[in-house]
């Protein structure tokens, strides 16, 4: 098993890094055999074959997880998406659209059809039905697993055309190659990561590309296509808010910089009006485009656009400049005043809803931490560390400013767009880890401009001297570091040597990038997180399959209408794999309900029992990493439960669980901590267990301490199941005492 994986790893690496070498061979073969092809045709052939290889590369580099583990759905949210897709393919679209799910958020239930972005599920179901129609007997799970890689491949094609639109086809090719293997994107699109982002990035880039195309051509058709791209994006991911704010911002910048044109007018108005109408068809979005504060910028710019058009017309009609100036002043002032008044009245009357907490936390990174613990508690909502920028972008991080330099040097409507996209998304990437994903296409495109422009300069320098074959091959490899202005020297031999050296350096850097990306993909981003892997004492790989063990236990051994209480992280998995009703899940729409669970977990057992009885809880599931050293377990998440619970129920106070501001579980822990339900359930019977040689019994390997309460007695709960590595522990809630 291990050997096989290793060899596969090597194979993929080989294809990942020197994919370009391959096609340069291809190129030479072709050029020798059929030299009758004209240069233009040769270039086309080259371009298509490079693109085709990049397309395949983007797909296969995302298959590490399938090779390492198995064809399975990863993480948390994808399980919900999988469950809904399964429902969609089994019951059909109308049932899906009207689906009221009584298995989650017991007893409130959830209207699934009205509270999700159906784009992903419909896409996967459509692929599934198409394959079925073509008589390919696939299982829906395989389709779901491979949806994200498939759309990543499609993204590379869009990136090519986008790059071509902004700069030239060379930049497009480099952009496609970059985005195919960029870890920032791979992190969300490996096989099995069946999440909205998988298709949403494709839709995002497509919308932007089509819009830029529409602005460049002024064509109604492209604007219409862009509106449809936007519709797809809205149906797929909540990140569409980024589009509906970035595009107006871009239009505003063009207006301010005096780049207003009829092309822009046509493109924006068509895209906005049609896009808005189409987006309203998604139930979850509904009337937000006209009612929510987050969408008001787009509407404001739309009206501003009409004012501009009107002014243009007046200017055309009025020949007197002075009169026009006065008119301009009055019109702009009154337009702004009317807009502000409308916004003010709308907000005050409640017609326009205020900004949501998530939106605030984007603009002010500290907002969530102070006000909404439930948003701050999600790990992917944390501010980004510098290291993860390095990790996800590698050399692109240095190429990005260079690309910006090139963009500013050749300013056009298109480059202004990509610059704005790059800068805003980089800011958002700094605010939240998960938004690195949104920044990735921009970073790839801008870096590609840098690489392409530099290499073009360098090779043209070489070409003018002597037409060697170096040019072709180095162009094929594509890419380089930008800061090399010294090459514009007068001394020609030095210039040539310098150019060669720089090209070699560029080649070195790019090969490093390829190696890094492959390594990151295989090591960091291909773990399903539902199956954990660790290195054993002898360097062998140990697999902890405890989650699935526990969920299948639930499925096999509990009554079908049993209600399982756990922290919300595991809700989707329990409903999808265990097929049991849960109290809260990853769709964190009801803070009070989550706070109730948080309160139960942080109360004493008898108080928690009352809460559990009132929610009809039959089983309690906790995740515990003390035996295996798995650190993202419930004890480490516990302070968030206290905070979220305390946010709604002030009887829960965070200082009660801390000792001098320290969170600890050993003998010095706070008494409330040592006796709360979560502690008891996590460490029940743990005091008898020797986890590590030379340590006392009850040594918690995840936190590296000996636990403080080894003699745990449970009164109202009993242990029902503990997985083989103790990662998941399930307790049964006892019925009330018969005689008391």
């Amino acid at each position, binding site marked *: 098993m291990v050997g096989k994986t290793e060899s596969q790893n090597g194979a993929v690496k080989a294809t990942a890094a020197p994919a370009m070498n391959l096609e340069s061979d291809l190129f030479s073969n072709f050029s020798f055999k059929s030299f009758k092809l004209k240069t233009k045709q040769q270039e086309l052939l080259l371009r298509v074959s490079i693109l085709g290889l990049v397309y395949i590369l983007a797909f296969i580099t995302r298959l590490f997880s399938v090779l390492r583990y198995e064809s399975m759905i990863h993480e948390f949210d994808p399980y919900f998406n999988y469950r809904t897709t399964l429902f969609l393919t089994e019951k059909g679209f*109308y049932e899906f*659209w*009207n689906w*009221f799910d*009584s298995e989650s958020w*017991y*007893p*409130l*239930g959830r*209207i699934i059809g009205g509270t999700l972005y159906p784009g992903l599920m419909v896409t996967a179901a459509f692929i599934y039905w198409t394959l079925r129609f073509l008589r390919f007997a696939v299982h829906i799970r395989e389709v779901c697993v491979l949806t994200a890689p498939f759309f990543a491949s499609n993204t590379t094609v869009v990136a090519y055309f986008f790059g071509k639109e902004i700069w030239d086809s060379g930049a497009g090719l480099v952009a496609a190659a970059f985005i195919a293997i960029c870890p920032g994107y791979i992190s969300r699109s490996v096989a099995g990561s069946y999440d909205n982002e998988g298709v949403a990035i494709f839709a995002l880039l497509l919308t932007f590309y089509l819009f830029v195309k529409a602005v460049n051509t002024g064509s109604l058709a492209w604007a219409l296509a862009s509106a449809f791209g936007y519709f797809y994006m809205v149906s797929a991911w909540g990140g569409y808010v980024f589009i509906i704010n970035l595009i107006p911002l871009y239009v505003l910048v063009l207006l301010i910089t005096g780049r207003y044109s009829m092309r822009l007018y046509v493109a924006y108005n068509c895209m906005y009006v049609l896009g808005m109408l189409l987006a309203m068809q998604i139930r979850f979005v509904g009337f937000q485009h006209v009612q929510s504060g987050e969408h008001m910028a787009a509407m404001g710019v739309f009206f501003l656009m009409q004012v501009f058009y009107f002014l243009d017309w007046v200017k055309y009609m009025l020949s007197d400049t002075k009169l026009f100036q006065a008119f301009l002043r009055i019109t702009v002032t009154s337009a702004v005043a009317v807009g502000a008044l409308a916004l003010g009245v709308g907000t005050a009357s409640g017609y326009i809803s205020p900004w949501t907490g998530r939106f605030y936390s984007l603009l002010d990174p500290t907002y969530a931490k102070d006000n909404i613990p439930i948003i701050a508690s999600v790990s992917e909502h944390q501010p980004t560390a510098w290291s993860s920028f390095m990790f996800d972008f590698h050399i692109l991080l240095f190429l990005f400013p260079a690309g910006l330099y090139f963009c500013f040097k050749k300013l056009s409507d298109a480059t202004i767009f990509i610059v704005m996209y790059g800068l805003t998304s980089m800011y958002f990437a700094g605010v939240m880890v998960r938004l690195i994903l949104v920044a990735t296409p921009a970073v790839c495109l801008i870096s590609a401009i840098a690489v392409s422009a530099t290499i073009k300069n360098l090779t043209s320098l070489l070409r003018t001297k002597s037409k060697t074959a170096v040019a072709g091959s180095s162009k094929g490899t594509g890419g380089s570091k930008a800061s090399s202005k010294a090459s514009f020297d007068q001394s020609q031999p030095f210039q040539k040597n310098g150019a060669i050296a720089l090209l070699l350096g560029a080649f070195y850097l790019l090969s490093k990038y390829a190696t890094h990306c492959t390594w990151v993909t295989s090591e960091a981003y291909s773990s399903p997180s539902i199956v954990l892997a660790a290195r054993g004492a002898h360097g062998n790989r140990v697999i902890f399959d405890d989650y699935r063990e526990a969920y299948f236990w639930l499925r096999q051994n509990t009554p079908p*209408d049993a209600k399982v209480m756990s922290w919300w992280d595991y809700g989707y998995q329990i409903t999808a794999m265990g097929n049991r*009703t849960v109290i809260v899940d990853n769709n964190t729409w009801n803070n009070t309900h989550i706070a109730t669970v948080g309160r139960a977990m942080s109360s004493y057992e008898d108080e928690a029992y009352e809460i559990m009885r*009132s*929610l009809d809880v039959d089983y309690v599931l906790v995740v515990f990493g003390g035996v295996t050293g798995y650190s993202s377990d419930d004890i480490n998440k516990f302070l968030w439960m206290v905070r979220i619970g305390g946010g709604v129920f002030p009887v829960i106070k965070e200082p009660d669980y801390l000792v001098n501001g320290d969170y600890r579980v050993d003998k010095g822990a706070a008494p409330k901590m040592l006796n709360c339900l979560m502690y008891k359930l996590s460490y029940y019977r743990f005091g008898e267990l020797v986890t590590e040689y030379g340590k006392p019994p009850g040594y918690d390997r995840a936190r590296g301490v000996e636990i403080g309460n080894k003699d745990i007695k449970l009164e109202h709960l009993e242990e029902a199941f503990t997985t083989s590595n103790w990662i998941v522990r399930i307790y049964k809630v006892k*019925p*009330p*005492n*018969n*005689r*008391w």
Partner: protein
Amino acid sequence: MAKLLLYLTLATSLIPLFSVAFSPENPTDRRVLVLVDDFAIKSSHSLYFGSLTSRGFQLEFKLADDPNIGLQRYGQYLYDALVLFCPSVERFGGSIDVASIVDFVDSGHDLIVAADSNASDLIREVATECGVDFDEDPAAMVIDHINYAVSNFDGDHTLIASDDFIKADVILGSKKIEAPVLFQGIGHSLNPANSLVLKVLSASSSAYSANPKSKLSNPPSLTGSAISLVSVVQARNNARILITGSLSMFSNRHEKSGNEQFLTEISKWVFHERGHLKAVNVRHHKVGESDEPAIYRINDDLEYSVEIYEWSGTSWEPYVSDDVQVQFYMMSPYVLKTLSTDQKGHYSAEFKVPDVYGVFQFKVEYQRLGYTSLSLSKQIPVRPYRHNEYERFLPAAYPYYGSAFSMMAGFFIFTIVHLYSK
């Protein structure tokens, strides 16, 4: 070998016979195990035992320390009820201990415990498990210098007369107990933490619990009507328990008292001859339909019905009451409605599903003093409207329809004019 086989077949064919004795269909106990300290009790308490046998109970007398006694064999309980008339036993024989008695009760069987002064720790422990604490002083007896039995005057006023009964016809029968009950023995108090234990007969306010032989130096720990003489517990699984501190109360000695009537009536209750309810045919459906749906829609009109019967000792009779209520419950009752009855045991109510979706429950929580508690809950999800269940054409929206179509027409005309004029 063949003989053995025959025995085995016989034994296995008997097992179902044993298990039908106490069933939801026929809740009255049939087989009763009586554990005594010595067999003299059989004759000294013959009146009481006689009343039981005459009502059809099969009594099986065993010495409490008989090494061959056991409550169950091969996982099946051999008896439906247990009577402990062995106040001084220190250790049961056979496989019986406190835990097995508690298990016996927790699996739905009934228990009568009679202690006495000098009750053993074992009996006290059984009582404590049922929420009753006997006076800790082993020699203590209930003394009442005002309400004592005149007939049997021996000077220390330990044979007391009490008529402070619980006011529940279900437990004590509808016929009033005229004569007071004579009691001689140890008093007990109820554990305040236990909400299921009830005082059936309590001492008068002038009673106290002390050792009659010694001089009273400290104030007695148990006084007045806090002293319970006879208590009952109806467990959550409807097993019934009777606990008293006097074994002599059951004896033949007190002829003129109300003992016989009191004990007969209360043993009818304990052995499920009275006050046992069952609910069957819980049904709900939309008004005008008869099939039970898997899910309701908000604002549906529905009908809920249930049939409730009471066990009369021999047959199921319709239970008639006007206070049975149904809740439509999701974390709190959204609908609370009294069920109307047709006097034949059929209860029903019609109501509208609230305009709230979620997972609801039909709940009937019927808990009345003395009756077995009925706790029915049936889960049913309530969904919102489907996309095509809303009204199709809203009158309020006609201006919008009009504007949309006039816009289309206008655009069409404008196009023609724009293209073909000139």
